[in-house]
């Protein structure tokens, strides 16, 4: 197990990158703590796979360094990095039995038979495949195969990190949840550094201690699931995380007074020296729908009942907004005003979060 340090790391598939656009991954400094579970979250093509491939050694970065503990491995081959990877679709050795699959990495490293038997038995117990150890891997279901390819990584005690490249893509929905829970339990038990690439926010938020959100080649925020939810550092994070995402409204601010399209609200913090384009972000969870005259008038377009709550779709200032309403609330015709929980409001300058001074 190891701490992974990315130092001024950047990658471009173009030979002579000139502008930011030429970079698949923009400059990045980060330390992945030993034994933590991370998720790399972002839409398709945001550079998360590039980052994962750099860590695993498939791609050599065009700029910067990557260190395992204090050893520079930037130019080292995958074979020498001692990492494990679980791929998007299950990679198992079809003609081998489950047991042979699990033994394979240890045998190749010339470990002695007694040690191999003991490791395989222990991993088989952890990933719950003891009853199928003597079956050929070919006939197994996708989720069992994924477990085996995970087991092949974990069977090595000294593995530096386990990388997951959207490993639940081909798994049936009901098995996804179970596998994710097992993964989480395995992480607690074995304390490997785990990096989990996904574009599914539920997967990221339930699996990881810390989530790295990426967009167009750039890391926009690294934080705990709660931080990402309450204090998104960028409007992209606010929008991308949450279902539905954060509402973003144009705003003018002086001091603690915020002027929306046709209403004024009082902020809990003082802001000064703001120059760029200003926006106010508020999550649908922190908004309330109320009677006419009690808040800001909106135009409701649709109400969706999604079992445990209702989503009110509405228009304000020519923008779509969403409000989450508890299921037991009866929405009448005259309930067409909104109010915010002002302590949960975030202010963004040129899309980046700005903090004011406490009043």
């Amino acid at each position: 197990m190891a701490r992974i340090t990315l130092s001024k790391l950047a990658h471009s598939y173009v030979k002579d990158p000139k502008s930011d656009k030429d970079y698949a991954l923009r400059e990045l400094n980060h330390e992945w703590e030993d034994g933590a579970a991370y998720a790399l979250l972002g839409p398709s093509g945001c550079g998360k796979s590039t980052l994962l491939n750099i860590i695993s050694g498939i791609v050599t970065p065009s700029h910067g360094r990557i260190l395992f503990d204090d050893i520079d491995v930037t130019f080292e081959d995958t074979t020498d990095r001692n990492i494990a990877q679980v791929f998007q679709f299950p990679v198992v050795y079809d003609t081998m039995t489950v047991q042979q699959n699990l033994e394979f990495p240890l045998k190749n490293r010339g470990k002695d038979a007694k040690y191999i038997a003991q490791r395989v038995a222990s991993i088989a117990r952890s990933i719950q495949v003891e009853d199928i150890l003597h079956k050929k891997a070919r006939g197994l279901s996708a989720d069992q195969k994924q477990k085996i390819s995970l087991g092949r990584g974990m069977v090595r005690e000294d593995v530096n990190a386990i990388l997951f490249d959207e490993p639940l893509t081909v798994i049936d929905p009901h098995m996804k949840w179970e596998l994710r829970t097992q993964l989480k339990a395995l992480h607690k038990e074995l304390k490997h550094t785990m990096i989990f690439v996904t574009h599914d926010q539920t997967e990221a938020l339930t699996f990881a201690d810390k989530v790295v959100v990426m967009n167009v080649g750039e890391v926009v925020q690294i934080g705990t699931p709660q931080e990402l939810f309450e204090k998104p550092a960028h409007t992209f994070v606010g929008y991308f995380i949450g279902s539905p995402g954060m509402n973003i409204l144009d705003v003018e601010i002086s001091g603690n007074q915020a002027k929306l399209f046709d209403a004024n609200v009082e902020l809990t913090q003082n802001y000064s020296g703001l120059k760029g384009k200003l926006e106010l972000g508020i999550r649908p969870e922190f908004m309330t729908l109320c009677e006419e005259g009690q808040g800001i008038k909106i135009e409701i377009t649709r109400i969706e009942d999604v079992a445990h709550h209702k989503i009110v779709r509405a228009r304000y200032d020519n923008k779509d907004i969403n409000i989450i309403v508890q299921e037991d609330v009866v929405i009448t015709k005259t309930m067409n005003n909104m109010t915010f929980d002002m302590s949960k409001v975030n202010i963004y300058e040129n899309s980046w979060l700005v903090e004011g001074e406490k009043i």
Partner: protein
Amino acid sequence: MKKTVNQKAWFLVLPVLLLVGFSAVIPLMTVVNYSIQDTFGNNQFFPVGLEWFEEILHSERIHDALGRQVLFTSIIMAIEIPLGIYIALQMPKSGIWASVCLVLISLPLLIPWNVVGTIWQIFARTDIGLLGHTVAAMGIDYNYSQDILSAWITIIVMDVWHWTSLVVLLCYAGLQSIPSAYYQAAKIDQASRWNVFRYIELPKMMGVLLIAALLRFMDSFMIYTEPMVLTGGGPGNATTFLSIDLVKMAIGQFDLGPAAAFSLMYFLVILLVSWVFFTVMSNIDKEEG
């Protein structure tokens, strides 16, 4: 589910029955017809029962031809299958050189069979052929028209040159379909080159290899044109394979009855071996599953 009964539907099968009848059954029946009759000429035939079949089964000449045929097929398959796999593994996976290799490899497959025979017939001549002359000049006693070993080696080299490409192309297609993640996983597991071949490439190629082996078996077991052009079955009868012998019997000696019986048994042998081969191979496939 309740099915509608409509006997008129049988008419829909009729076109297929007619087609199969004219293309396969009727021609085959004429052969069956010859195989149980004899003639003294004047287009007068009389039935002889299974006499021809008995004669062919006990004919030393046919036994020898069958022996040569089995030997030939075994040798060329033992060479072409491993060689084809090896060449496919060495070929570049992508880029301009992959295309160049594919075109060059495919060339022998595009040459008409009798032209292949002619090419090698001239190429291997000791007086004017580049290969034959060079080998002879090196002091090796080589002459495919007089020496049995030379004739066999020439025919085998010719067949390997002509048909290994087919195995290469099929294996190459099989290899191309392996996702790169498998190789990546093998690297992570520190698998040796041999293990990558044994546990990733070979299992993924099994399907196409089965087809390649089956095609090579059938084609080589029926080979006629190339050895006919190259050696004409000689020296003596040394390269007289089943097809060559059959043609000699049917057209050379005009023994229609024995030739017909021979054809039928020849056909059944190929059918049987192909069936056994296919069943065994697909069962191995299933067992592993």
